[in-house]
């Protein structure tokens, strides 16, 4: 722990290890991003990519990098960071490493919204908007069902699991109602994919992150750390628990819904990234910024793998995050078990 103090009474506490992990993962994401911008049918070297990004490329290179490839990369970075951030907040609020939007039902809610549009028919813009609405409505529903003079984490998880089960059934039904072509498109969306994502997909999420991260998540981060001690202890320390929790839950559900609207319900990132970040930083608490960096690196890397792993055959990124995230979870359970902590 490093403490910085100025004569004016300003004092900051920094954890070197968390800084290194956060910066390292951000650098890794950037390096993978440059790699992603340079690979494809028209390969470019890292130097060419950087030259083009700084405005020194030919018009053709300019078009390929900033119009074709950059939106997809920015979408990947934002979705990864948003899911990881939301996952870290949920895990911290329910005091359980399984508290992820996949378990709590918010992703399924977003899927239900999107599938409704698929069945009824509508533009991709409508699909995105419906996904956001579906996620938010589910958030309100889960909160209303779980809240009773407080919100114990286990009740949120149990209600979330129940809502998830119901929505999975609803989603299955909607899929059977969709015309065959639309159903195929819907299944691709449900897996989570970054194919053909443009600025219109990335922008809403980018704006939400730019506003919510400093205002809500960094502003309320210290209070979130106190809530981890238990509602009573946090109240005794002067945290308005209900208000802070509602604000953080709302903001995290919004991020998850926007991420689903941008790339579909990409699985396991929200579960894996915060956990991985905590293991790397070895710091107790939500580790919000390191989790964001890990999430971004994870999704950019997974998308690279999804595009290049099988030559001539692209996978949706959700398949890769599912395999990596699921594998990590199994490995984690096995090692924790050996270490006697489970």
């Amino acid at each position: 722990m490093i403490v910085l103090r100025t004569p004016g009474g300003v004092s900051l506490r920094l954890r070197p290890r968390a800084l290194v992990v956060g910066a390292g993962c951000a650098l890794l994401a950037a390096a993978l991003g440059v790699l992603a911008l340079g690979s494809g049918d028209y390969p470019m070297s890292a130097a060419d990519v950087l030259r083009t990004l700084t405005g020194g490329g030919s018009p053709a290179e300019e078009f390929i990098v900033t119009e074709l490839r950059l939106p997809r990369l920015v979408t990947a970075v934002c979705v990864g960071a948003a899911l990881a951030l939301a996952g870290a907040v949920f895990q911290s609020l329910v005091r359980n490493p399984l508290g992820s939007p996949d378990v709590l039902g918010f992703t399924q809610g977003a899927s239900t919204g999107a599938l409704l549009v698929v069945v009824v028919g509508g533009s991709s813009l409508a699909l995105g908007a419906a996904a956001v609405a579906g996620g938010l409505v589910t958030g309100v529903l889960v909160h209303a069902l779980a809240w009773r003079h407080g919100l114990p984490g286990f009740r949120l998880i149990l209600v979330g699991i129940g809502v998830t089960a119901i929505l999975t059934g609803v989603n299955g039904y909607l899929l059977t109602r969709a015309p065959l072509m639309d159903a195929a498109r819907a299944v691709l969306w449900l897996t989570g994919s970054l194919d053909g994502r443009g600025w219109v997909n990335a922008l809403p999420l980018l704006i939400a992150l730019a506003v919510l991260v400093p205002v809500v998540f960094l502003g309320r981060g210290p209070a979130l750390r106190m809530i981890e001690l238990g509602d009573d202890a946090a109240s005794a320390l002067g945290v308005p628990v209900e208000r802070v929790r509602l604000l953080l839950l709302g903001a995290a559900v919004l991020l998850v819904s926007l991420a689903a609207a941008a790339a579909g319900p990409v699985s396991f990132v929200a579960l894996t990234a915060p956990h991985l970040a905590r293991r790397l930083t070895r710091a107790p608490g939500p580790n919000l910024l390191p989790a964001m960096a890990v999430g971004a690196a994870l999704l950019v890397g997974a998308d690279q793998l999804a595009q290049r792993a099988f030559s001539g055959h692209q996978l949706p990124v959700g398949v890769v995050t599912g395999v990596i995230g699921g594998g990590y979870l199994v490995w984690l359970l096995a090692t924790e078990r050996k270490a006697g902590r489970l």
Partner: protein
Amino acid sequence: MQHRLSGEAMTLAYERRTVAQDLTVAVPDRSFTVIIGPNACGKSTLLRALARLLRPAAGAVLLDGEDIHRRSARSVARTLGLLPQSSIAPDGIGVAELVARGRYPHQRLLRQWSREDERIVTESMAATGVADLADRAVDELSGGQRQRVWIAMALAQQTPLLLLDEPTTYLDIAHQIEILDLCARLHEEQGRTLVAVLHDLNHAARYATHLIAMREGRVVAAGPPAEVVTAELVEEVFRLPCRVIDDPESGTPLVVPAARRRAGAGTPWATGTSAAVAP
């Protein structure tokens, strides 16, 4: 007598269940007040109300003459601290780090760790005897050590008033006494006002300077232990026949429950002479 903290004509209720009606209590300044009473008499509920965790359905809790719910959580947290019955130590957190969280109500986004914070955390750990454990992980500690760490955190909050909800539950007798001795020292040496809920009547009688005895949501008696703890009152509050004698160690009242008398037994504690157990 001065009272910075009091409850006036409070109705305390959870959802549908009313725990207490028209309850009025006052905590004398610089006292070590202990609330006693049988299970479900409302003593923990009273403490929660005094700690601003439960809003009275009617009446009010007054802190320095002002309704506690009209003040912000943070401003209350600078005057009144609480050791809750169950707190959760985050995975892998160190002792010094947990104690440091007690400084939260005094910190700001750009004033995260002043020299004063550092000094107070060090002093709090010294006062509770956990300075040697500063770098240990909380989950490695014994129950008694852990409770002292939580008390250190509450001390680091630097509040003149400190409420403790059953601080000795789940501890063995030696650790119970250790925690109570620590509380008594904090009360005497630092001049803090302490309010604790305790289960053990004899501990309460020995350590408290002011007792509040409750039954079914009412205050049956309040005052110094020597006046409150009588055989009649214990019978009334706990429905327990007993004798009250002088504690040979401290001179405070000591409650000795009446022995269960068996038919035909010569002395109350003798066994084996009654017909029921004879071969």
